């Protein structure tokens, strides 16, 4: 009797749940086709796939505000930094001491509340590992981090600087749930680095549920997330290494996002009704760099000759299909203070004349080395080859493995005379960008760009607090860089994300990675 009642009840339940699918359908899944599964999720250690994941797992004390852009769309306002995990902050008159008050009740998926201790622990971990986290901390000139009370953190800077607040918007040094992380620490691994490389413990919107290396990773929403609940509660990240296959998948609706789609296919995809392509100019520029420690690039006139012999129009057409934005300086909008410093236009006669002036009347032979880090490298190199030949600069293209490129272009190694590189950074701050790219100590300085005057300008701008003087310093630096012509500025390739047609809410952020919490696909 009881059994029969039980089964009837079950039957009713099943029928009811099928008639009211909303009861079941609390879960919204986003399926994404990515180049490779994350090989680790510790933001301090760079491995393939890590950044794409960790920007969604960890969040910072501050964040960038938004504004409505010229095209009517919502965009990030790099001039507006607002509190995020922090409630508010105060700064000392000399600009070297910041006191942050944390919001109460921010919890991780493990249920632990964010306290100042977590922040301190985070910076200790980065200091010990001496990797990316430590670098970001040094960029903001952070000297000391200590807990003033349960919800108050004090930052001691070595110099007042503008980068600090912007750096805090980033997902690294990641603010870990140290209570949970400490459970996995051991005497020779006091900061649980091993556990944190394969597990996430943060206060961000998502949490790593499972990871099958080479196949897929599954992320679930942090049920304790403090801010607005994301639309997607589950992210299934599939490894699809072939770009052609990724395109097939997004066009047939099997996935709702496909990363790293070859540029030339975007043109067709824009016309496909099943697909939506979101394009943002970004601020990364495709450049060709010359290392002044190698002949013939030691002579500034040779470098300028290369700048004049570049066919910018052809590059725009052939490489960027008319969709790139011309780069006008080593800094481009939306970075504050960007000016039109790069005044070179195609002029073969001028190029030949400059070459003759420094003793190369019959032109010169050079090798342009590139790798597979960015899609535009090879097409750009081939266009450079064709164009520079018209001024007598005979270019031999040479493709090298990406590990070799990484090894040889490293700071203080600098053994690549002529190479391609993307100027970009996580933080849209001009001093930071210039430091990374053009300062002798900058880690993205790939062509031995070591000029004492330039370094002085950049260092001064980093700690200049008066607005007008600051802008002037930045302008001077850009002009100096353009005159030295060690960078050939071509175009900003832009960021182009490919989604299923229904996708809304995409918001580009300066770290240039997809943030899942903004997305929604409700019709």
């Amino acid at each position, binding site marked *: 009797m009881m059994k029969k009642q039980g089964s009837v009840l079950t039957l009713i339940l099943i029928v009811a749940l099928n008639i009211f699918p909303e009861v079941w359908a609390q879960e919204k899944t986003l399926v994404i086709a990515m180049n490779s599964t994350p090989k680790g999720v510790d933001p301090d*250690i*760079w491995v393939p796939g890590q950044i794409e994941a960790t920007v969604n797992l960890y969040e910072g004390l501050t964040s960038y505000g938004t504004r409505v852009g010229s095209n009517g769309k919502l965009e990030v306002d790099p001039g507006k930094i607002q509190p995020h995990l922090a409630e508010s902050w105060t700064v000392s008159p000399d600009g070297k001491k910041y006191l942050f008050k944390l919001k109460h009740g921010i919890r991780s998926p493990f249920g632990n509340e964010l306290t100042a201790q977590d922040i301190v622990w985070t910076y200790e971990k980065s200091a010990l590992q001496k*990797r990316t986290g430590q670098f970001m901390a040094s960029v903001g000139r952070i000297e000391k981090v200590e807990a003033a009370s349960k919800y108050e953190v004090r930052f001691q800077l070595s110099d007042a600087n503008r980068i600090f607040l912007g750096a805090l918007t980033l997902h690294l040094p990641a603010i870990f749930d140290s209570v949970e992380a400490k459970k996995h620490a051991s005497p020779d691994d006091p900061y649980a680095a091993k556990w944190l490389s394969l597990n996430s413990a943060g206060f961000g919107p998502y949490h790593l549920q499972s990871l099958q290396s080479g*196949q897929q990773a599954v992320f679930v929403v942090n049920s304790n997330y403090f801010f607005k609940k994301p639309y997607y509660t589950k992210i299934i990240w599939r490894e699809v290494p072939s770009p052609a*296959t990724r395109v097939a998948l997004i066009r047939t609706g099997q996935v709702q996002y496909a990363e790293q789609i070859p540029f030339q296919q975007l043109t067709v995809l824009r016309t496909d009704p099943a697909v939506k392509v979101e394009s943002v100019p970004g601020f990364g520029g495709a450049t060709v760099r010359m290392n002044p420690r190698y002949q013939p690039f030691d002579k500034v006139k040779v470098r300028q000759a290369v700048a004049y012999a570049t066919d910018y129009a052809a590059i725009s057409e052939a490489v960027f299909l008319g969709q790139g934005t011309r780069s006008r300086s080593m800094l481009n909008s939306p970075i504050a203070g960007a000016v039109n410093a790069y005044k070179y236009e195609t002029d073969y006669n001028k190029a030949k004349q400059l070459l003759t002036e420094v003793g190369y009347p019959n032109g010169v032979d050079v090798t342009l080395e590139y790798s597979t880090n960015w899609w535009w490298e090879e097409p750009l190199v081939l266009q450079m080859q064709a164009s520079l030949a018209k001024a007598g600069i005979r270019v031999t293209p040479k493709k090298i*493995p990406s590990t070799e490129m990484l*090894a040889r272009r*490293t*700071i*203080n190694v600098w053994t690549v005379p002529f190479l391609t590189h993307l100027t970009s950074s996580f933080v849209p701050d001009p001093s930071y960008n210039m430091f990374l790219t053009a300062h002798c100590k900058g880690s993205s300085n790939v062509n031995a760009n070591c000029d004492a005057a330039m370094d002085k300008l950049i260092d001064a701008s980093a700690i200049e607090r008066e607005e007008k003087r600051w802008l002037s310093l930045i302008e001077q630096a850009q002009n100096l860089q353009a005159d030295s012509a060690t960078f050939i500025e071509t175009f900003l390739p832009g960021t182009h994300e490919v989604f299923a047609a229904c996708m809304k809410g995409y918001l580009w952020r300066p770290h240039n990675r997809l943030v899942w919490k903004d997305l929604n696909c409700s019709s």
Partner: protein
Amino acid sequence: MITTRRSRIIRFLFVRLFVSIPVILGIVFLTFMLIRIGGQDPVAMIAGPVADSAMLSAIRTQLQLDQPLLQQFLNYVLLVSQGDLGVSWQGGIPVLSEIKQLFPATLELVFLSVGLAALIGVPIGMRSAFKPNGWFDQLTRFCSLAGFSMPTYWLGLMAIFVFFYLLRWAPAPMGRLGVDVATPAVVTGSVLIDCLLEGNWNALSSALSHLALPVLCFALLAAAPIIKQTRAIMLEIVGSDYVRYARANGFSKKTIEKIALRNAAGPLLTFLGLELTSLLAAAALIEYIFSLSGLGQWGLNAILLGDFAVVQGYVLTLALSSMLIFMVIDLMVLLLEPRN
């Protein structure tokens, strides 16, 4: 000395194992040296994009890359003998665990493909041989040579384009299982076997459908040499003395076919073994295109990135499997030999 069948088998196995060791060592040594002589320097990749030269030399010392090559090799052999195949430099994941996870996928693909190819190829090859230079023979020879000539990646991409993108017959080429399907508990690592063990029919059918297109492509390409070799072997046998004698004696066609097959089994099996081993390596491209996350794709990527430990582990796995396959095949031939 009385050599019983059993003692002969045991002796065979012993000799084989003994001989295999220097060969394996040779292969490992060759790979080890090869991958280090090029300009590949993974240290910068490990250190990450914000490294400086001090950090780089620290990492180089930590990984023992500054020691003489021979010393590094001996260290490696020592570790391998203890079961430690090193870690991948992209994230510190142990090589052995990756192999355990990825190799079954490749094995699935290759065994199914060779099986299908043999099922198609052997009968066709036999039929060709019995009526040489007839229209059927000419046609199959042409088709098999066409199969020889087609690049793997080409066929795979075309197949995806036609059967998935245009016709939607094949499932999405993004992994071994569909997105909504629950993964079976990992026992062997092979999705098919694990599903069978668990009785998870839903996952099994999803896995099979995801394997259908890659296996079909791979099998078509593998069938070509099988057809050719079967035909060659059968021709040899059909022209041999004892078959001619049997024909002269008026034995039925069926009996002659049986005799021929019995004698062909040895060389045919040997050839199939060869095919298996060469496909194990060629699987990389199919895995890449169909996102099957197998060993080949992983090894290929590692070679291009200079991930030394992974490449060594990959080649070692392939070499050991080849040795094993040859040993098993030769054993089977030994057992099948009527004189044994």
